[in-house]
């Protein structure tokens, strides 16, 4: 079929245009919830400003030098029979110039860098909330020593208040990385490292372990849930009530504000209200939780939670967005699947397959779902 030039043109664009849209989309930070390019805290802004400054200089240098190279490549094409070009061996003045200019550019990068180093290394004072972060193979423990609370894989923080993180590890080296709020800080066994930031906007944001830490390094994610001070207080008050038995009525979880841009809008894990302690499935699950040995590794209390457990604290597991450190969405099916076959889902995880039947899993899910 013959094509007119115009339609050929059109067809070519029809191919290229979606590709361009795709590329443009793939290049825009808005496409990436875990991006480092849209900072949401004072700490992250320090690094971002420096990075932008460096990037501008780098882009300038890139354009000039690659431009000169391309120009030379085309301009100085020769033929074998061309006369020999003039044999220049060097030029001291030019060489001094192109030693000094990069030095000046580097100074323009170094000054804000040094300022940023000291800013980010400062120890925060005043009204700070201390959180102790413990990396485990392969999940995160968050302890609030002043509030006497413990939770796992979801870091709740108040907006507008500086959080001071004291980080450590229970086993090997990990790296704590909440990209929207701060850069990485490695966590070591028997050594404390520090990190701080003040969140600017509420929402739920992804974070991840960034240091290779064994077979499931890839599945060691966490969520940062920045909340307005009032919501955070509500959450704290609620958590304070979480002893061995969860409160009969969980707070309305829709009150959590998640509408900000870039945050993952959470899908409500379950449509029906969670089972209470009176539910027979709950009671069966409670028995199984002890009988299957779950209690050996998991605590169900947020207050005065024991230290050094192998598995994450489950006091409010029913309300979390993900299970297994960011591996699966926290739906009833996923939770049941996880309880029955953790080794199939996250091979090498320290939780063994315990031979839980489908029925037992349903009961355990009912029990855990009630822990909000």
């Amino acid at each position: 079929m013959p094509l007119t030039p115009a339609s050929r043109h059109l067809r070519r664009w029809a191919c290229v245009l979606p590709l361009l849209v795709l590329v443009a989309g793939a290049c825009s930070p808005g496409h990436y919830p875990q991006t480092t390019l849209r900072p949401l805290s004072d700490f992250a802004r320090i690094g971002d400003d420096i990075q932008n400054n460096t990037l501008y200089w780098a882009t300038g240098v890139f354009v000039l030098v690659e431009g000169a190279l391309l120009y030379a490549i085309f301009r100085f094409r020769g033929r074998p029979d061309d006369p020999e070009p003039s044999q220049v061996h060097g030029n001291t003045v030019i060489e001094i110039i192109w030693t000094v200019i990069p030095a000046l550019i580097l100074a323009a990068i170094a000054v804000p860098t040094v300022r940023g180093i000291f800013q980010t290394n400062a120890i925060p004072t005043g009204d700070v909330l201390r959180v102790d972060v413990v990396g485990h193979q392969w999940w995160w423990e968050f302890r609030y020593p002043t509030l006497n609370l413990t939770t796992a894989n979801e870091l709740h923080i108040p907006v507008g208040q500086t959080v001071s993180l004291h980080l450590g590890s229970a086993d090997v080296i990990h790296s704590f990385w909440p990209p929207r709020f701060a850069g990485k800080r490695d966590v070591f066994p028997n050594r404390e490292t520090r990190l701080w930031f003040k969140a600017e906007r509420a929402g739920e944001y992804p974070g991840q372990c960034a240091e290779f830490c064994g077979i499931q390094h890839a599945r060691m994610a966490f969520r940062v849930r920045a909340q307005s001070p009032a919501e955070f207080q509500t959450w704290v008050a609620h958590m304070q009530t979480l002893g061995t038995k969860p409160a009969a009525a969980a707070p309305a979880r829709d009150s959590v504000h998640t509408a900000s841009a870039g945050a993952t809008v959470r899908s409500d894990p379950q449509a029906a209200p969670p089972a209470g302690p009176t539910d027979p499935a709950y009671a069966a699950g409670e028995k199984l939780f002890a009988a299957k040995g779950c209690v050996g590794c998991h605590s169900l209390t947020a207050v005065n939670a024991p230290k050094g457990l192998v598995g994450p604290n489950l006091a409010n597991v029913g309300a979390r967005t993900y299970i297994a450190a960011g591996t699966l969405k926290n739906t009833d099916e996923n939770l049941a699947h996880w309880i029955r076959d953790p080794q199939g889902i996250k091979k090498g995880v320290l939780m063994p397959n315990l031979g839980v039947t489908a029925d037992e899993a349903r009961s355990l899910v009912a029990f855990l779902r009630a822990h909000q």
Partner: protein
Amino acid sequence: MATTALDQQRAHAAAGHEPTGLWSWITTVDHKRIGILYGATAFTFFLMGGIEALLLRIQLGTPNNTFLSPETYNELFTMHGTTMIFLAIMPLSAAFFNFIIPLQIGARDVAFPRLNAFSYWVFLLGGLFLNASWLFGAAPDTGWFGYANLTSKQYSPGLHVDFWMLGLQTLGVASLAAAVNFFTTVLNMRAPGMKLMRMPIFTWMSFITQVLLLLAFPVITVALILLMFDRFFGTNFYVPTAGGDPLLWQHLFWIFGHPEVYILILPAFGIVSEVLPVFARKPLFGYAAMVFSGIFIAFLAFGVWAHHMFATGMGPIADTYFSLATMLIAIPTGVKIFNWLGTVWGGSIQYKTPMYFALAFVAMFIIGGLSGVMHGSPPADLQQTDTYFVVAHFHYVMFGGSIFGLAAGAYYWWPKMFGRMLDERLGKLHFWLMLIGFNLTFFPMHILGLNGMPRRVYTYPEGLGFEELNLLETISAFLLAASFAVFLYNIIKTWRGPRNAPADPWNAATLEWTIPSPPQEWNFAEIPVVHGRDPLWEAKREHGGPLPEPPKVSGAGIHMPNPSYWPLVTALGLSAMMSGLMLIHHLGPWGIIAGGAILLFGVFNWAFEPAG
């Protein structure tokens, strides 16, 4: 049988014939043959590392992919890094050191020909040892950086880390022996008149590389010894629960690791600095500046190691020092790039395949260098480190830099090494596929990294936006692989053709082009006398045009070192010791003792054997 074969060979050599046959390769001490052995072995390992990379890319092509199991992925990424660094790029550079340095400085061989053979055999056996781990289902799986305390017995039971640690230790012996050899060779074996500041720039950069090897490898040797004692003999150097310090591993590793980066790139700098002047038909711009910037880079290499460790929280003073020292490196590197520009500027550029690769090297290296400056700033680096931004950066330096440079060298010196011209059309096809495939594979990694994709993950979830670019990278990786298929085809095709290369096919400037292609066993029938930096250009200018083809001559009267199999025996003893060490809990000390006995036996016979 051995002795008679050797005798025959000696008789053969005395008659002026090149020895042939497998035995002649096993006993060879000829630097050119060893260079070819290095090249062939390293290229094979390079292809293996490439296949490993393709498997990794398939796994990462889609989110939550199950093409590879997590442990296989971890083994593959560890072996990909270890292979490319220790078994591909370093020995590919060594292939050029071996083949080219003695020719460029007008020598008949290296300072210690048998030590040279020993280096090669240890390298080969070390590489085989490392890869034998696949057969035992215990390939190393803790990353090429092997951060403690993940490598401790508690967190890495099994043989994975043992293979890695003893394999690297073996390879370190090979590198150190070669470095002593080439350091001595460059200083002592130069032809009359070749002052240091008349040495070809490739020889200069290689010489600096040897200094880095000599000073960096002992440090990793100690780091690995400490790890070995932790794993085999119950010490606690890297065990924090006993008071040990996993951070010490990081310090020692990067004190080695940062110079190692320059060990990988400096030879490529040298190659490109040879190729650009020849094809621009102009001498290298700012020769002295090129030499001194190389020395300065090497010197700074020992003072910047902790910029790999900003995220560990070293405190503001250390951060400031390491950050500023790191930025300083950009100055001599910039000088090099500008001098390369100055070299082609105003030239009469002849577009042959080596020149394509050399120019692309400069273009790609600029990108890698600039992203390097971006990591130099700790507050920004805290976001960049351990993401795909870093993966992009060092692939622009290692692939866009080293591999493009080595490819330029391969096309440039191929006629000298094998007496055959590689096909130009296929060479250019190789180039374009490689350039496009490389950029499409690695440039998007910058974007992914800055947008939050961490390194060393066997998979990533949906919904973080990583899907599109990862798929693009995976497809492009196959394009990149295809470029090497073209290269292989080019080699095979040319191999079948006649030896058609003249002594000086490119109108080059240095001594290796004054002798027949391929060179005869003794390289130079008469040791040349050097009067300047570009001796061949000067000779041609004096002659008023191209020189006549140099005749092949009889080697009668030229005394060359005897072939020897003791280097191989010694290398086997060393490998046996390493294997014995690994099996110490099964064999007791007997494996080590047996290996040690072979080693001693080899050393003594080597020492008392007439060298010729």
